[in-house]
């Protein structure tokens, strides 16, 4: 009852950690067997190794947090060489998150990862925390189309495009990447936010702005997924503030086919496993015999 089929991914359950909130898996393997996960989305890879932004990189907000890590990662070669081998033994599909500041960078990273043994790509056209490019791709339908098409050309893996919520017209964006040949959508990345410390009189995050995640943004994510599900024919991996199985059912009803758990991993390092254990009961409680039955159930 828990399994879901997504393009290129045969998931034993619909629950996976979200990119950037689970590193490359190692740390959480100390808490539970990663084989229980529906899939794993790893931290963004870029062409070159990146140090990322100055610290502080996180700040707490009401029912959420801001982060501006700045895509710190060991570079795509480092990821393939030093990080992925740890994950292969687990019986869990790996989704690699791809970032870049130019189309060429997206192509390079996507191309290299496609031959690395990961099972799908999630193209992060929505990271708000890097100065050059990055988020531009996620707010301009033409650029989003371009990136998607080019990545599809160099990769035979299923390609999920991760959309930014910081846009006027999320449906327009989703339609562009659908036309460009995307296999699925990841929704949503963080909302751009800021917190100012009245004592220091400065933004807490060194980068000034950061990405807002956590339960605070769930209503925005649900709204966007509901809108996009209605108009676009791509499966959606839903995320934003998920902490409970009730949240997961809400995402499924809105139109997500699977869900990713982000910052909740920081509150409870066992959260993905706990939710996987609890989901069957929650589905039953709300009258569903399977995950698939619940998908899009709020559309009538």
């Amino acid at each position, binding site marked *: 009852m828990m399994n879901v089929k997504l393009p290129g991914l045969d998931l034993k359950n619909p629950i996976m950690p979200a990119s950037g909130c689970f*590193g490359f898996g190692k740390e959480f393997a100390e808490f539970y067997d990663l084989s229980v996960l529906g899939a794993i989305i790893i931290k963004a890879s870029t062409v070159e190794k990146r140090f*990322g932004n100055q610290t502080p990189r*996180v700040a707490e907000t009401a029912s959420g947090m801001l982060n501006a890590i700045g895509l710190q990662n060991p570079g795509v070669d480092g990821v393939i060489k030093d990080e992925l081998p740890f994950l292969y033994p687990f019986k869990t599909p790996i989704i690699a998150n791809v970032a870049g500041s130019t189309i060429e960078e997206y192509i390079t990273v996507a191309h290299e990862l496609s031959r690395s043994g990961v099972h799908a790509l999630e193209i992060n056209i929505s990271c708000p925390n890097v100065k050059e490019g990055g988020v531009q791709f996620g707010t301009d339908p033409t650029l989003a189309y371009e990136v998607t098409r080019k990545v599809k050309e160099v990769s035979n893996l299923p390609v999920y495009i991760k959309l930014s919520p910081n846009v006027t017209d999320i449906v327009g964006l989703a339609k562009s990447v659908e036309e460009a040949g995307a296999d699925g959508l990841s929704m949503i990345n963080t909302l751009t936010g800021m917190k100012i410390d009245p004592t220091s009189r400065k933004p807490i995050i060194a980068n000034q702005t950061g990405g807002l995640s956590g339960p605070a943004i769930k209503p925005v994510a649900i709204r966007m997924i509901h809108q996009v599900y209605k108009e676009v024919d791509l499966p959606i991996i839903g995320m934003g503030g998920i902490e409970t199985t009730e949240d997961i059912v809400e995402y499924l009803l809105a139109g997500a086919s699977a869900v990713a758990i982000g910052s909740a*991993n920081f509150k409870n390092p*066992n959260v993905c496993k706990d939710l996987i254990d609890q989901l069957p009961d929650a589905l039953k409680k709300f009258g569903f015999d399977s995950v698939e039955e619940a998908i899009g159930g709020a559309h009538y």
Partner: protein
Amino acid sequence: MIREWMTIINHQLIASQTYLLEIQGEIATLVDSPGQFVHIQVSEQYFLRRPVSIADVSPVKGTITLLYKVMGEGTDALTHKKAGEKIDIVGPGGKGFPVQDINNSKALLIGGGIGIPPLYFLAKQLTAKGIEVTSVLGFRSEEDMFYVKEFESLGKVHVTTNDGTVGTKGFVTDALPSLENIDTYFTCGPTIMLRNVKEKLKGVPGYISIEERMGCGIGACFACVLETPAKEDGKGYVKVCSDGPVFRPEEVVLK
């Protein structure tokens, strides 16, 4: 490292805005070195956990002692928890002071404010190994002082206060003892203090314990990184939560 609902055994005010919190559970059996910390979920109202150093471990009672100061909303809310209540803890986190590697005979401990707690557990372990411990403890004022007696029972103690109400007026760096008698120093406190200590004690082998804002607290999110001097060649960074919070002074860039 595990996540556990630990039981509060003791919770009391020990100085101005400063509390002792003793908690019982399996995590107490997993601590391997002083300088490690626990990550506390104060309540559902605070999204991020709060890192607090382990100030002592009682293997007999199976407890950990924390000493914390109210610095904001989260630590303020923490003060309302009562003995008998359960509290959501992840730990023990990080790599502490490598007591096993310290084989010389004279240690200098330098703590500022809420940097002092982990040094107490360290002082106990060092003296247990027969190492002679001198401590320099810096507080804002007399009312902020805590654990001075406890440190005195383990060795010589110099106290400094910013306002001169007790001990030397000024900062810990104004009361450093003669360095001839020191083999290794160990320090924890605000970053600016660490930088000054590092500067003053250049040449003396040392260990510093550093604070940084954390997301996950387990090494997965890259929130708490510090640049390393060898940025261009090697990895270029360390994570305070999992590679630290204890580092060699030469390993990290202090901003």
